[in-house]
């Protein structure tokens, strides 16, 4: 449970020595409670007080690092149940489940999903390796290792697990195999190889008991596989585990989760898409799918990017020339701000019109048109500077420039700064762009 400022104050020396940089011990305590400064800033805290505090101020959900190198990911570390309360910090990962039989067929499909969206690489970050038998499992692990993806060893056989870890432990996989029956042995294996341990149990009570038992064995690099037999119970587990950790201070449930959709919606790709969306919003840290097609990836990765963006920071697209509908140097130009939402709405409508347009995006601080204009970040000056800096007049021969309807006021000054250009004002609403462009 988080301590209040007053509780922390009671543990300080109350001497107001100012050595921590704060005027009083009370001011110091309040800042520690907010998480603004670490408790160690006070040089006069007793050992005992520090121990009490570090326990009490420890985060409610463990932040766990898995994978290595380019495929290293941080899971968990969340402090709020809803993104507007602060922000979510660790994006969920998407995994595709493969078996010894399906690996060769599925790998090229998995590798196909690799594209960039608003500065982020979108790909299948993890593969879930299904266990069939000892011999083929080792071969599967050998094949899957070194492919730049986090490995999830979905195996409950201790011997097979050890054999797999002999091959891939250096890649820091997740050993997802502990159950109420085998947890002692699996905890030893996870400790030995230094990998995160996944726990699955028949129900939420058994999951809690098992996680607690593993903690008692001194291991806290844990992931909770909340998948149950049904969609309903899986959702109930995912929500209750996260809620217990963040709202009710239950540390035993303060670990990232795995949801395996192949186990609850096998063979139904559309249903897996719907459920994946549900678990992006509601507390799946790793979402395992049977497959990942472009049709599924496009909405799911977009949704994930939206949900895990920091509400205090606007999403921005990179400034530059975006040719739409096969635009070339003879096509008209249009300009708007770099706020991602504006970009997507405007470019979407332009694409719908079928009219070739060079969309020019300048750095407007990630604000919407009116806000950027009011803040002076989207002005005749900034647009003219962009056209100069990006050598638009050399790259594009057409001299028609469409500006947003909401920035119509810029037309006069723009015409002065860009005398060769024909400045045209677009409608106020993006929804009217299709008609506008077709009639232009």
């Amino acid at each position, binding site marked *: 449970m988080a301590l209040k400022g007053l509780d922390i104050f009671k543990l300080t020396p109350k001497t107001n020595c100012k050595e921590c940089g704060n005027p009083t011990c009370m001011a110091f305590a309040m800042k520690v409670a907010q998480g603004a400064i670490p408790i160690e800033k006070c040089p006069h805290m007793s050992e005992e007080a520090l121990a009490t505090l570090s326990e009490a101020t420890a985060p409610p959900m463990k932040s766990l690092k898995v994978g290595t190198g380019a495929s290293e990911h941080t899971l968990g570390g969340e402090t709020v149940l*809803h993104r507007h309360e602060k922000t979510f910090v660790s994006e969920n990962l998407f995994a595709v489940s493969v078996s010894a039989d399906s690996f060769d067929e599925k790998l090229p499909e998995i590798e196909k999903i690799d594209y960039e969206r608003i500065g982020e690489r979108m790909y299948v970050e993890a593969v879930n390796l299904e266990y069939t038998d000892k011999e083929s499992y080792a071969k599967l692990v050998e094949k899957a290792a070194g492919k730049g993806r986090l490995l999830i060893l979905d195996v409950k056989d201790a011997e097979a697990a050890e054999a797999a870890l002999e091959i891939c432990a250096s890649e820091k996989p997740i050993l997802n195999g502990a159950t109420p029956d085998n947890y002692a042995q699996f905890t030893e294996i996870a400790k030995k190889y230094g990998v995160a341990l996944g726990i699955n149990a028949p129900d939420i009570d058994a999951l*809690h008991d098992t996680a607690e038992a593993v903690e008692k064995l001194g291991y806290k690099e844990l992931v909770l596989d909340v998948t149950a037999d049904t969609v309903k119970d899986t*959702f109930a587990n995912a929500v209750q585990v996260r809620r217990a950790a963040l709202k009710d201070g239950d540390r035993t449930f303060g670990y990232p989760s795995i949801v395996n959709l192949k186990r609850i919606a096998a063979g*139904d790709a559309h249903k897996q898409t719907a459920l994946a969306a*549900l678990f992006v919003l509601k507390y799946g840290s790793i979402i395992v799918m049977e497959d990942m097609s472009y*049709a599924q990836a496009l909405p799911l990765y*977009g*949704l994930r990017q939206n949900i895990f963006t920091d509400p205090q920071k606007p999403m921005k697209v990179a400034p530059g020339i975006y040719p739409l509908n096969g635009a070339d140097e003879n096509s008209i130009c249009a300009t708007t701000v770099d706020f991602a939402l504006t970009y*997507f709405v405007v470019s*979407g409508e332009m694409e719908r019109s079928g009219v070739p347009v060079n969309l020019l995006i300048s750095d407007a601080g990630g604000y919407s048109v009116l806000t950027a204009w009011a803040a002076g970040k989207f002005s005749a000056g900034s647009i003219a500077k962009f056209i100069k800096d990006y050598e638009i007049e050399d790259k594009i021969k057409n001299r028609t420039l469409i500006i947003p309807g909401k920035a119509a006021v810029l037309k006069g000054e723009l015409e002065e700064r860009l005398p060769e250009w024909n400045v045209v004002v677009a409608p106020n609403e993006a929804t009217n762009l299709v008609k506008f462009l077709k009639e232009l």
Partner: protein
Amino acid sequence: MAFTRKPQTYSSSINEVTIGTGDKAVTLGGANIMPLYTFDAPAKNKIAVGAEITDTGVDRTLPGIAAFYEGAETVAEIAKRASEMPGADFVALALNGADPNGDNRSVEECVEIAKQVADAIDVPLVITGARNVEKDTELFSKLAEALEGKNVLFVSAREENYKTVAASAVMAYGNKISAESAVDINLAKQLNVLLSQMGIKPESYVMNVGAAAAGYGYDYVASTLDRVKDAALAQNDVMLQMPIITPVSQETWAVKESIVSEEDYPEWGDRETRGVDMEVCTAAAVIAGGSDAVILRHPQSVATISGMIADLM
């Protein structure tokens, strides 16, 4: 220590609003739990799924949709087919053709079409307008008169026209309306307050707090829904306890992922599959956020989402 369950139930609940008449009438809202948290307490009413049809006809370029509506040519036939769509609880007629920037279909023609639809179906009818304030004001007033007694839900009344729409649709002809705001909890609440001050009863209106396709600013939608549900249930804000309807299809079938052809984007694959995945992904997200009803276009999306709802509730 064993796991201690701490169910999160509230003394306040979402209002109940019934649309349609007879055996197939649908009641929206009523929950006193966070969306889909049926492990805390049972949900009172099932989340409803609507099958969208338009006055501009069926999009037969998509094989799945064409196959479903095969043989249904007239407005009445299409409506009847939609009402029988597996998983659909209501039919949503989108009067897209009424848009003055599009076909600009006349109000009289729209009324005629709506009447044919209403007469052909026994499930509740939801009507979404041209999304043009002036046109919708006139349209909803005339439609409300023509459809008196059908308990139709009109989507949506906005800040600019709520007085006229509420007065005609609800007060004069006893239908239902949805109060639309653009992903902003304060605007949503303000419009609800204005409607209640007119004397519109809680059982007569729902709200549409805005929608976006997954990836297209959905962050704002997610947070608006989260905040509305928190205010309605945890803080007992009676001016935010209206059930929520979200027209998902209008957003998702208008984004690039659902539009561009496989010829232009070969690596993306079949367009229809993409459109369905975009539709179900967005629908699942708004349902997780607290929508009590969604409007979907593709029969596969309706089947998938109603299946997911059945699994969860």
